């Protein structure tokens, strides 16, 4: 539905539904922490900005029919490859749902903790370097985008709040005699 609806806003809404489904799969796998983080980060923040941009665009809803047919063969090919991969995986592994706790919790020394604690104790000990590294990469991306978009133009008026609030020397109390008025 994400790619087949003609209205871009509808397709973003379906994309959000797809994220929610992914979160549901995480919940079924007893990975509730990941599910909630997925919703908060992707649905709550990223997809909102996405929807923002798409809503602001002036789009044309009428797409040509043959335009879709044009991409059909390559789409079918990719679909077939994915189905083939799924079939191969399903043939080679026997999925046993009785030990789903073990599947979702492969490190057995964490089986008595909730998975929030387990993720914390693994992420900040064994994998702290990778964690920090991904943080630094995100920081670089953020600084980069700020540097790229920051321009200093001449004659731009900036709001200085302290100056705005400060009324010293800018305000004057005048005693007005009735019927006289004041010169400003």
């Amino acid at each position, binding site marked *: 539905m994400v790619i087949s609806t003609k209205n871009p806003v509808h397709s973003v809404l379906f994309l959000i539904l797809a994220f929610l489904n992914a979160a549901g799969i995480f919940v079924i796998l007893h990975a509730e922490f990941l599910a909630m983080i997925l919703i*908060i980060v992707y*649905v709550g923040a990223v997809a*909102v900005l996405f929807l923002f941009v798409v809503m602001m665009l002036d789009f044309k809803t009428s797409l040509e029919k043959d335009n879709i047919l044009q991409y059909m063969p390559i789409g079918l090919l990719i679909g077939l490859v994915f189905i083939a991969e799924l079939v191969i995986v399903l043939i080679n592994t026997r999925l046993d749902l009785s030990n789903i706790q073990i599947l979702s919790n492969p490190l057995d020394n964490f089986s008595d903790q909730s998975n929030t604690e387990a993720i914390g104790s693994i992420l900040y000990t064994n994998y702290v370097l990778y964690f920090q590294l991904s943080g630094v990469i995100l920081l670089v991306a953020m600084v980069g985008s700020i540097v790229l978009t920051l321009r200093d133009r001449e004659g731009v008026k900036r709001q200085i709040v302290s100056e705005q609030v400060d009324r010293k020397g800018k305000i004057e109390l005048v005693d007005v005699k009735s019927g006289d008025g004041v010169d400003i």
Partner: protein
Amino acid sequence: MNVLQSNFFELITIIFYCILIFVPLLVGVVLALYADRKIWAAVQKRRGPNVVGPFGLFQVPADGLKFIFKEIILPDSADKTVFLIAPIITLALSIAAWAVIPVQAGVVLANINVGILYIFAISSLGVYGILMAGWASNSKYPFFGALRSAAQMVSYEVSIGFVIVTVLMCVGSLNLSEIVLAQKNIWFFIPLFPMFIVFFISALAETNRPPFDLPEAESELVAGYQTEYSGMPFVLFLFGEYINILLMCAMTTILFLGGWLPPIDVYPLNAIPGFVWFILKVTLVFYMFAMVKAFVPRYRYDQLMRLGWKVFLPLSLLAVVLTSSILFFFKLAPGMS
């Protein structure tokens, strides 16, 4: 057959519990609407609703009845499916979040381990109802209202998240019941007082309450995202909004005011059942919400954004660092001593 039967029985129990949450919630919303108008009137030396029923108590049900019998107007150029789904999403999400709120020791529909994250996730989904409503109306004022509202909610969610993190560091669990039990000795609003203030103000902004009700600022945007709505969908929006407000009051109670715990653990106070304390505290926080609505003037939009990003975000980040340092240095963190 036996499995089916027990499943059926389980389903019935869950539905019963849901009704047990839903009905008091609806009554609460009606009373909150009434109290809101009455407090507002009292501050301005008016009488407020006082005609329908004793003390005007039936004013809100009467209004609701009127809305139900009104025609639902669908704008001609609106995206009708999205237009009608939007209020349903708003109401459904705001009710869904109540599933994890513990009103007394052990009295909670779903005592899940990531309770607070669940509430955070659900409330971050609340933006979609408003965005969809604004976009689907296909009109200028609702669209601007929706954009303002979405930007505002996303901004203040950041600082709410950091405030929650500071509380979580003192508790060591994401479970709401354990957050309450961790306040047995001292309620968190005493050691974390600045965070309590930040959370309260952010909650006002998050629920589009005055002084942050810019999405529906009537002098600029008619009625914001709900301009085109009438009849039942409008009631759904109204109820969704007030259930969200009550949810934020309940969150403030749980995170900072000790949930169902009595103020002091002595005889006449701890004999009162927990849910009474809970409701009392929620009422107190709602009273503060109503008072703020009555006597604080509306913010300008750039002031709102400045407050969110330039004041609250650094403040709450600093609080996260400070709290974790103090907990670490004095070995107060849960599981450290």
